[in-house]
C-alpha cells in the first residue's frame, strides 16, 4: 500500500497516553494556552497498541502529522516504551521506503504538567505540515 508523500490536509493526530500526555493536554487547557486547531488528540492507554499499519493508514487517509505523546520512561507498563520505540523505527523505515518525510511522525514524552513541551511539539509539527517539506515531491502519488 502506498501513502501520499504529501498530506491532503493539515490535520495533526496526537496519540496521548491517558496517564501522562492526555492530562498534560488538559493542563494546557487549564492554563488557557492556545495552539493550532488542526490538532486532534486521541486518548490511549498505551500507544504500543497500534500496529505499524495504523500509522501508515492514517497518513493514507489524509492525516498530515502524527505525534505519539507517551509517558516516556515513566510509562506505567514496563517494557511498553521500548516496544513502541522499536515499532516506530519500523514505521520510519516504511515511510522512507515510500518517500515520505519522516518528520511527520514523532515520538515524544509529555508529562501531566509539561505544558511548554506540549505546545512546542504541536507548534513544530504544525509548522512542518503547513509547508511542503523540502526535498519532497509536491504532488500526491497515492
Amino acid at each position, binding site marked *: 500500500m502506498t501513502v501520499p508523500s504529501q498530506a*491532503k*490536509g493539515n*490535520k495533526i*493526530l496526537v496519540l496521548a497516553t491517558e*496517564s501522562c500526555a492526555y*492530562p498534560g*493536554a*488538559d493542563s*494546557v*487547557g*487549564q492554563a*488557557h*494556552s*492556545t*495552539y493550532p*486547531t488542526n490538532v*486532534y*488528540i*486521541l*486518548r*490511549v*492507554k*498505551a500507544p*504500543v*497498541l*497500534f*500496529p*505499524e499499519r*495504523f500509522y501508515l*493508514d*492514517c497518513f493514507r*487517509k*489524509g*492525516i498530515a502529522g502524527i505525534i505519539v505523546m507517551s509517558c516516556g520512561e515513566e510509562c*506505567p*507498563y*514496563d*517494557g*511498553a516504551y521500548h*516496544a513502541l520505540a522499536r*515499532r516506530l523505527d519500523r514505521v520510519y523505515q516504511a515511510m522512507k521506503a515510500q518517500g515520505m518525510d519522516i518528520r511527520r511522525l514523532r515520538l515524544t514524552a509529555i508529562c*501531566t*504538567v509539561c505544558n511548554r513541551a506540549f505546545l512546542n511539539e504541536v507548534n513544530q509539527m504544525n509548522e512542518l505540515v503547513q509547508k511542503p517539506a523540502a526535498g519532497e515531491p509536491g504532488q500526491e502519488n497515492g
Partner: protein
Amino acid sequence: MTQAKEKEKQHATKVGVYICHCGGNISDHVDVEAVRRRLEKVPGVAVARTNMFMCSDPGQELIAEDLKNGVVDRVVVASCAPSLHETTFRNAIRRAGANPYIYEHANIREQVSWVHHGAAATEKAATLVEAAAAKAGLLRPLTPIRVTAARHATVIGGGVAGLSAARDLADRGIPVTLVEKSPCLGGQLARLDRIAPTGERAPELVRALADAVLNHPHITVFTDAQVIATDGYIGNFKLTVRQEVASEAFTGTEACYIPFSGMRPAGPSPSEPREFNLETGAIVVATGFRSYEPRQGEYGFGDFASVITLPTLIRKMAEQDTEGSFLEIDGRRIRSVAMIHCVGSRQIPGIHPEDASGRLNEYCSRTCCTATLNAACRIRETHPGTRVYELYRDIRTYGRGQEELYEQAARDGVVFLRFEPDQAPEVVRADPTDGYPLKIRVTDTLTFSENLEVPADLVVLSTGMEPNDVSDLVEMMKLPVGVDRFLLEVHPKLRPVEMPVGGIFVAGTCQAPFDVGETCNAAGAAAVKAASLLAEGHVELDPFVAEVDAERCKGSGACVEACLNPGALALVEMQIGGQTVRRAQVTPALCLGCGACVAVCPENAIDVCGMTLSQYEAMVDAIVADQVAADALR
C-alpha cells in the same frame, strides 16, 4: 469482526449525543447549537441534545430518560475533561439500568473551548464529537471484572494521619497493619508542645491516639519498618515489609511515651532484621513531612549559635518550661527574640537560590505563620520581659481561631515588621557597644520602607514543610508527584484522597502542608474511602482488558511473546469444532490492558475491550471525513 460487519453494527446502534454548555465555559467559544445540528445528521446518531450543565441532575436525567425510553443505546457526552466526569456519566447510565461501558467521552472544554476560539473552535468540537460518536457506535456492553478483595488495609506512616486513618479503618471492622519507619508513633506532632489554635498539649494528643491504635484488636503495628516491595492491584496488593532491629533506647516491655520522639510500642523487637509479606486490599500512604533545613548562612543559620529554627525553639521552650520575666534558652537570658517568617517556603525563582538538586519551594507551608504567632504569644505570656519581633512577608492565619492569635500577639506587644521578598532581612553580628550578640537589618514596608535594626539575643527561623523523601514508594507504586514534590491526588476537589492507582489513598502532609485538624480530615476521608472499597469483599475493575476472538486466532503465540505482564496471556489447548487446538487466552485480572498484544497479532484476533483498533480507526475516519468529502468534490 469483519469491517463490513462492524459498519453494519455501527449503524444498528442508536447513539445519543449530549453537548454541555458548561455554563458558558464551552458555549462562549463553541456554538453548541451548531454542533448539535451537525451531529443530528450523522448516521447512527439517534438524538443530539444540549444542556447548560450535563453533570447536573437535570443533565444526567436527559441521558437516563433517553435510555429508559429506548431512544438511545449508546451515549456520548461532550463536556469537560474525562478525568472529571467520565465516571459521573458512566454511573448515570448504570443507574438508568444500562451498561456503563456503552459510553464515550468527548473533551470539548480543556481541549477545545479553553484553547481555541471562533468558528474554528466550533468546527473542531463538532469533529471531535463526531469521532466520539463513531467510536460509540462500535462499543459493546462489557462486564466489569470482579475480583475478591483482601479485607485488610495497610497504612504507611504512623504520624497523626496514619494513626487516625488506622483507627478509623479498624473501627469499621477492617484489620489494619501500620508500618512506621521510625522507632516511635506520632510523627512530627510528637515534636511539638502546645499546638495552635487550641493550646492543647501535643504529647497528650499523640498519646491518646497511639494508645487507641496500640490497644485496638484489629491493628498490628510495626515500627522501624518499611515497605520495600509492592506487587498486585486493588484489592490484592502484595507488600514486602522489612523491619530493622530497634536500638536499645527504643525497646522496652511496655509502651512508653518518649518526649520529642513519640510513643514507643511495647517490645519485643526482632533480634535481627526480618522481612515478611502482607496481602492487603488497600493502602493508605501517610508518610508526612520534614522540616526545611536552612542552608549554611541562610539568615546566619550555622554561622551564629543564636540562630535556630522554630521546631528547635518549640523543643527548648518545652524542655525548659519555667516561668520568669525572661525566656531562657541554653542558660542564656533572652531579652529580645526576632522571628523570621517564610524560611524555605514561598521561594521565588531569581530571588532565592535553588537547593543542591535545583529545586525551590514555591508553595506556602501554611502552618508556620500560626505556629510562629503561637510561640510568640506564649513567650509574651510566660516571659513578659522578653521582647518579640516578627519579620514577615504576609501573615497567613487561615482557619478558625487562627486570626485571633494574630490579634492576640498584636495586643500582647509583639512588634511586626514587614519585608519584601527581594529585600530579605540580614542577620549580622552586632557591635560590641550594642549590648546584644546579633542585630537584624530590615527594610520595613509598614513604616514606608524605613531601614531599621532589630537587636536580638535569639533569631528564630520559621521553617516550612517539605515532603518526606518517598521516592522508593513513588517508584514502586507508580504514585504521581506534583512539581512541589508532594504526592498528587487524582483531583484536588472531586477526588482529593485518591491516587490514580486504584486502591491507594493518600492522607496528611505527604500530600500538602496541612495543620493537625486538616490532616485528620484527610485521614478520615482516606479511611472511609478504603473501608467502603473493602466492605464488599470484592472489587470491580474496569473491563478494559485484552480479549481474544477465538474464531480468528490461529495460535501463533505472537501476542503471548509481546505481553508485558507475565501470566496475563497464555496459549492453552481447547476444543474448537471437535478439534484440539492451541489458542491464546487472557487472564483478565492480570491483564494491564496496554494492548502490546494487539499490535502484533497477524490475524487481528486480539483487541482491548472498550478501545479496539477498529474503534480508533473509526475515530480517525471521522477526523479526516471533511477532507475526504472535499476530495470527492474535486
